[in-house]
């Protein structure tokens, strides 16, 4: 499997989150999920997408720690590397 860059992960995460409702332009790494109105059900869907695309398995306890879009991108890219 080829190496995935953090930028690629970030683009994919933003694309996925935008499909859940928030405007793509409003999604930046510093934004919290709360600010974006992204809830735990959305995060489960994000985890499913991430596992499909990068083979990274995110469990409930992983997700609980995530507060911002940047947190999610960090975690996913560190595990995908």
């Amino acid at each position: 499997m080829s190496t995935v860059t953090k930028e690629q992960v970030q683009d994919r995460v933003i694309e996925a989150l935008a499909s859940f409702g928030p405007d793509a332009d409003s999604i930046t790494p510093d934004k919290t999920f709360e600010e974006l109105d992204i809830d735990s059900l959305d995060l489960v869907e994000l985890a499913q997408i991430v596992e499909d695309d990068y083979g990274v398995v995110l469990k409930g306890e992983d997700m609980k720690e995530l507060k911002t879009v940047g947190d999610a991108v960090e975690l996913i890219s560190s595990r995908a590397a």
Partner: protein
Amino acid sequence: MSEKRRVVITGIGAVTPLGVGARRLHERWVAGVCAISDRAGRANEYDAAEHLSVKEARRLDRSAQLAVVASDEAVAEAGWEGEPPYDSFRVGCIVATGIGGIQTVEIGHDAFRERGWERISPLAIPMYMPNASAAAVSMRHGLRGETYGIVSACASGGNAIGAAARMIQYGDADAVLAGGTEASVTEFGFGCFDTMQALSPGGNSRPFDARRDGFVMGEGAAMLVLEEAEAAKARGATILGELAGYGSTADAHHLTAPEPTGRPASMAITLALKDAGIAPEGVSYVNAHGTSTQLNDAAETVALKLALGEHAYKIPVSSLKSSIGHLLGAAGAVEAVATLQALNDLVAPPTLGYEVPDPELDLDYVPNVARPLVNVNGGAPVGISNSFAFGGHNVTLVIKGAE
């Protein structure tokens, strides 16, 4: 027992194969428009993007979307302007469905079969649970009183409105948003009804006609704002009519076939009229269940004669299903909305597709063309709306037009 609290209707909304809006439903039906094509009645004019945000739309099964959009219209007409005009804990919500979020079930099941249960959407359950529409409408309008779904197949919408009226009459609520919704016109849903030979093979909905050979599936929703009469008057609401009576019985006979003597169905009509304190001779119009199946239309005709006696022959009896098909769990609510408008416009909408009379079915079914409705009692016109269901559930609503 003290005098019953009266229940008035202050807002109506509908999304049906005849379009988005209660008025459109009424006007197009009266004009004789048949919205059935390709063996079903689909709400093709409904576009989620016109009514819901991306987030709302993707978290609601189509059935709940239709209910929410119908509820928006009803609440706007009632003049609720953003929040209910009562303590929110005194405003209930009952939304019926016959089938629930079957499109969501199918998508989830495809994901399960193709990719394993780990790929089922976490939104599957909250989208397909049969109470999802009631929950969505409650959240949409901030209703915190008693809120739930109600399930009795094709009588569900009628039961929802009846239960809502009781909630107000008993004093548990001052207002209730009540109705029904259905969006089960999928290949699977279609196949399920088709194999039980319930559907018209040619997709012809022609209630009471001798050639009737099954019903046509339809989708849609309708919602009504019901309020306690004195409270509605006190806030200066426009009163569209009254939910004057409710009667409900069961056949205890067969899974799908109606009880052939028509007695349990006629008892629902009788109980509803008694509840309303109205004699059979006070009824000006019957909005029939009229599904276009051999058995229903025959049993309903018998039931009307048993309950109304000779008067049954003197008043118009018509079926909205001839125009939009059978909306299953939404039918009772959509038909209540249609009945109210027929009464207020003093017009008997037509039973479309009616050409060959059945000698056994000899009431006035208003064939093909609407006509003025004769108000038999001089006061507010009274109509009854019947709903009968697989499982043997019978519901009659007595609706009075505006004073």
